[in-house]
């Protein structure tokens, strides 16, 4: 290809580089950077290896990050981090192709410190996280793909990258590689085989719109933001949700749909997104906005049941790589941050005994179990199978709710008493009472 490749670098250049690290973190997303930052601040020598040209370059997210978990790792981050808007309004829409029932919650205290959540551009936010890790003393190594783990007497002893002289040793490797958890598999820790039923495909567009227009259309105070979650016929009746988040002068709009349902229905996610954008109530919000970027990403939705073994000899797994996404509240970044921090704290505790074997690192699992990370994941362990097996939640029910609302609100020559009868009839014709009861019961069992 080119003659410059694979020439060894001159010896002089490597003089001051440590030949090994206490800890290697694979992946510079929220999980990896939380771990790297926590370790570096504690004075541990840690290298974080990221395949992208900078942290954030490969990341995309809807996306809202939450103050509380984020500030546990990066105290008062909102004073400095590049954030888009603090979210003061959260909406839930049940939408059909031409109508919508909107539930909206707005709170003034979401608009003051410490805030509740923020919309972020991951490309900028992750870069900032990486800068914090560097400032704390970590070694951020980008454009470096980790291809395998090094093993010594059965334990993980480092990583192999694709670069010349690309092996690097460490006492512990923290795998924070995100949803395509190839190294987790190589480490023999994976529990579910990668399966289309356990991941959602999200596609997202970023559309540019002047700041004032955004605040006008979404009815927001200057600087405040809205996050809208949408379910209904707009995902083509497939199990999935749509979302709109307001950034400073852009809007993120996208849909996430379980991958196997796309495969089964021979649909493409972007076709769904295109239809979604045509929905009249939505179209009004994004009218005249010009496309800036387009991206697609997977989200692990297997939940608690598909979590890999979280620790092994010399190795820990955190974030999306460990399947830590709560599919109901679409929270992943906060679980990633918290699990990354706990992985780091586990390593710090184990360093005191100088032991990094399975038994010692099992502390990580115990910490996670006492935290919201595993408690939330356990709570919703049945959510994804439930949603996948109840497509009526995404098609029929929102459709029916809208039909009932329409009938109820339409004034015509039907008396109100007759209208009630009609509504009831309409409802029963669509959903037999037994079915409704069963769905409610299933929902209660798997979501509460």
């Amino acid at each position, binding site marked *: 290809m*080119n003659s410059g490749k694979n020439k060894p670098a001159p010896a002089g250049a490597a003089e001051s580089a440590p030949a090994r690290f206490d800890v290697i973190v694979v992946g510079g997303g929220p999980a990896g950077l939380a771990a790297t930052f926590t370790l570096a601040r504690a004075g541990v020598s840690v290298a974080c290896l990221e395949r992208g040209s900078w942290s954030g370059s490969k990341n995309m997210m809807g996306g809202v990050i939450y103050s509380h978990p984020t500030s546990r790792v990066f105290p008062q981050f909102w004073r400095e981090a590049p954030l888009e808007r603090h979210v003061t309004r959260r909406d839930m829409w049940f939408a059909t192709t031409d109508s919508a029932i909107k539930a909206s919650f707005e709170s003034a205290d979401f608009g003051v410190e410490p805030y509740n959540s923020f919309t972020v551009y991951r490309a900028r936010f992750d870069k900032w996280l990486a800068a914090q890790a560097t400032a704390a003393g970590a070694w951020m190594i980008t454009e470096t793909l980790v291809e395998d783990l090094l093993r010594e007497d059965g334990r993980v002893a480092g990583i192999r990258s694709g670069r010349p002289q690309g092996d690097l040793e460490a006492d512990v490797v923290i795998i924070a590689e995100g949803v395509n958890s190839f190294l987790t598999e190589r480490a023999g820790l994976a529990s579910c085989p990668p399966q289309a039923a356990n991941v959602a495909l999200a596609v997202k567009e970023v559309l540019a719109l002047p700041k004032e227009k955004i605040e006008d259309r979404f009815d927001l105070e200057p600087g405040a933001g809205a996050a809208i979650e949408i379910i209904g016929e707009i995902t083509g009746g497939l199990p999935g949700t749509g979302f709109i988040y307001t950034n400073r002068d852009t809007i993120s709009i996208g849909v996430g749909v379980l991958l196997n349902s796309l495969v089964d229905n021979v649909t493409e996610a972007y076709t769904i997104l295109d239809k979604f954008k045509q929905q009249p109530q939505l179209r009004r919000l994004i009218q005249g906005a010009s496309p800036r970027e387009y991206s697609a990403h997977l989200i692990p939705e297997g939940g608690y049941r598909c979590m890999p073994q979280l620790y092994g000899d010399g190795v820990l797994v955190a974030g999306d790589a460990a399947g830590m996404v709560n599919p109901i509240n679409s929270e992943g970044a906060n679980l990633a941050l918290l699990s990354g921090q706990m992985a780091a704290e586990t390593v710090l505790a184990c360093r005191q005994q100088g032991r990094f074997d399975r038994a010692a690192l099992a502390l990580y699992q115990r910490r996670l179990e006492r935290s919201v990370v595993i408690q939330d994941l356990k709570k919703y362990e049945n959510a994804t199978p439930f949603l996948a097996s109840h497509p009526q939640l995404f098609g029929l029910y929102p459709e029916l709710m809208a039909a009932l609302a329409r009938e109820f609100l339409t004034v015509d020559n039907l008396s109100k008493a007759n209208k009630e009868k009609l509504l009831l009839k309409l409802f029963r014709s669509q959903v037999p009472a037994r079915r409704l009861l069963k769905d409610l019961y299933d929902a209660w069992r798997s979501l509460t």
Partner: protein
Amino acid sequence: MPINSVVCIKQVPDTSQVRIDPETGSLVRQGIPSVANPYDLYALETALSIRDRHGGFITALSMGPPQAEEVLRKTLGYGADRAVLLSDRAFAGADTLATTYALAAAVEKIAAGSLVANIGSGKGVDIVFCGKQSIDGDTGQVGPGLARRLSFSQLTYVCSLLEVDLKAMRVKAWRQREDGRELLQAQMPVAVTVTEQCSSIRYASLPGLIAAAKKPVEVWSAADLNVERGRLGLKGSPTRVSKIFAPPARQRGEALSGPGKSAGEMAASLFDRLADRGLKIGRRGG
């Protein structure tokens, strides 16, 4: 005897992602990631391979906004020994005249420092490398301008640097011309601009990257250089852009297709087509 070289690196918008505003004709740079000018990386590789052979010291030098630090940091990963960024509002808006003025002052400062530290050949800076041009400005003037200001000899459009003779202080190189190549020899100190025929940049080793991760990128302001402020940046730039336009897209060529026709028939119809357009076609030997 080791060689002390300076490689000039420009941060440019990643042109694979640049659009032209159809109304103003100017580049839409907003939100476009920056990369190192690709020709400058050929220059860096040329400097690195000379250092591989002869030893020496390489300083990567850039003038640009604070974000240009990232591009310079990459050069440290590839193996540059030192990185210097000229960053100051006073440098902004510079054309090639003002750019070479600031860069030359920086090269002089680097040379003076190397003499004190006894780096390289002991004669200051021996070679300044540049890419043959930048992909955003396309002027190709910075290398020659530097040579002139520093009173260095110059070798432009070098496609292969053959030999560095330290005793005689001479370099020998192939220079790319439109109609071929010429073999040239020049006296050091020399400014060399390189083309894409030189080796592309090496894949940095992991230890190289690790070493680079913590090396500082030095930032120099106008006050750090021996310069007159009036000759820097916009003030020092006589060039005025009077008009910018996007070149009209080239028309697509016509493709002849004739399913079921023989090659001979196709050639005949091509021949007729050309003759229709008034092209005189001479037949070989005819």
